């Protein structure tokens, strides 16, 4: 246990150095990078990814995976429009219900995984198709616009000079860090990922832990959906497509073992900063979005390759 904690610290310090180097290179390359405006804007852009990455850390620490988060985000975004525009509910209620729909999607994932013992990879691959399909079917690929002005304060406004959603992200990161690092629930999460059978025999409520975690993952994606809609002022059924890739990359870059049992929120936050810095740097260097996807894909594979080569204790 002590050894694994030490290697964990090592991974995080390596990552921190990597982040600093990346930031330094970016600052050197473009004088637009280290401006307050740009940094705050990057925080704004990374908030949705960040929220989902926090709960994904829990999911991957249990040895699971949730591929459906991007689709839940799409469905949540559509539901904001449906509840407000088509059903005619007040917007605050519609926002709340959209987050609840995300939570419901998470509950369904959790039940399929815990009750029917379907491997998370396949369960969430199926719901990835299902939730995105529901978003497309319900919306018929029509978008909803024309939200009232106050709604945009969440995604486009500031509180005390910092983008609103960055505050949300910071609060969520703090909460996630405390829960994973300092509570019994956090210990149970690690126990499930390290050795599920042993955890079960030690009296850990394995299924309940997993169900709660997948529900939280859905809720986070639902919340991210509302922020996304507020940021871009419209709802579309293809929102959040491919989000799962970025999220998993951030979490794995942050040192969370894809085999479960290891990982921290601090690491995930560092991974998130690194990904957003890379994206921003590539954009400033004139690389288009498609080129950025290539880099992120390569980074994901390389990150695990390196961590497998360095820390040989991960594989089974």
């Amino acid at each position, binding site marked *: 246990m002590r050894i694994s904690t030490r290697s964990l610290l090592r991974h995080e310090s390596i990552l921190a150095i990597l982040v600093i180097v990346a930031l330094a290179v970016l600052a050197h390359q473009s004088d637009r990078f280290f401006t307050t405006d740009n940094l705050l804007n990057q925080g704004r852009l990374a908030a949705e990814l960040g929220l989902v990455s926090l709960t994904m850390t829990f999911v991957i620490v249990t040895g699971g995976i949730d591929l459906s988060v991007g689709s839940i985000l799409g469905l949540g975004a559509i539901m904001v429009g449906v509840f407000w525009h088509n059903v005619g509910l007040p917007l605050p209620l519609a926002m709340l219900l959209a987050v609840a729909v995300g939570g419901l999607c998470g509950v369904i994932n959790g039940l399929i995984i815990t009750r029917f013992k379907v491997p998370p990879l396949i369960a969430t691959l199926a719901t990835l198709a299902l939730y995105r399909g529901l978003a497309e*079917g319900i919306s018929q690929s029509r978008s909803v616009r024309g939200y009232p002005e106050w709604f945009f304060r969440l995604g486009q406004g500031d509180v005390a000079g910092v983008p609103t959603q960055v505050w949300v992200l910071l609060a969520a990161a703090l909460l996630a860090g405390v829960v994973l690092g300092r509570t019994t629930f956090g210990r149970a999460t690690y126990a499930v990922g390290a050795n599920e059978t042993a955890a079960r025999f030690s009296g850990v409520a394995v299924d309940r832990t997993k169900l709660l975690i997948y529900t939280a993952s859905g809720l986070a994606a639902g919340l991210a959906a509302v922020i996304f809609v507020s940021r871009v002022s419209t709802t579309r059924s293809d929102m959040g497509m491919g989000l799962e890739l970025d999220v998993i990359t951030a979490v794995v870059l942050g040192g969370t073992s894809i085999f479960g049992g290891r990982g921290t929120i601090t690491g995930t936050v560092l991974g998130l900063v690194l990904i957003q810095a890379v994206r921003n740097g590539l954009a400033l260097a004139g690389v288009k979005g498609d080129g950025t996807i290539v880099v992120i894909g390569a980074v994901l594979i390389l990150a695990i390759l390196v961590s497998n080569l360095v820390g040989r204790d991960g594989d089974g």
Partner: protein
Amino acid sequence: MDATIASGTPAHRGPLARFASAYGQELVVLGSLVVLMAVVGAVNPRFLSETNLHSVFSGNAYIAVAAIGMSMVIISGNIDVSVGALIGVLGTISGTLAVDGWPVWVAWGVPLVLGIAANSVIGALVAYARIPAIVVTLGMLSIFRGGLISATGGKWISNLPSAFRSAQERFFGVPLPVYLAALLTVVAALWMRYSALGRAIYAVGGNAEAARAAGIRTRGMVVFVFGVHGLFAGVASVLFATQLQVIQSTVPPNLELSVITASVIGGVSILGGTGTVVGSTLAALLFSTIASALIFLNVSAYWLRAVLGLLILGTVLADMARRRRKGRLAP
């Protein structure tokens, strides 16, 4: 990620019951296919017209071909979510070669070679670098997709030479891709059932430890299976590229999902170790029938993906329930 399976033993039963038990899922798929065709045909007779059946059978032949390779990958206990993107890349390369005046055999052959090469790399990363297949292929998915759009700018390839498109030629009124899909399915099914190498795929997926103890080089097998999968993806990409007058040099949306769905619905167990490619080909056919049926029943095509998701989910849940029942019956 690596799951072990309590295999049920089919003991003391008649040959018919054994057949039904061994090919249960294939029979279910075949049955649903017949029922679906009959029902939709009754509602709208034009559904069973020759033109529509042609498009149902030949339009999705490439999915059936790709699903053969995907089934092998899943049976070996792995997964590949990058196959749709790979087919998009290979199809674009194939079309570009044809337009640039290369002989047809080059335009058809290069995708096969590149498919084998690309997927062997994936297989090596999975087997030797010990990166889970889902992570490698998620990464490759974005590399293929992003790379393709960056390289082509999403431009359409047109003016394809007619010799290149002759892969869609008809014989006795049936398009060549249909023959090809059927032939490849039969050959692959026989190979997997009767050759030592084919059996080894099941062994690796069923219980990697036991397979290793039995003298199978499990890591080499994984690379080999991915390579074969790449070959089928190459064939699929040629069928895909020759299908229309133009090639949209983008990744066909949802393709990997359709391919995985076909494999899983066709009875390939998601836990590895069991399933046949006959089922996956039937399922690819079922899937294209559903897509066409939605149109003839006046259901918006936007619901297609939801139907797809429900189908995977239902099949997977049924598979798990069946396993649990078998596990309980076994002493």
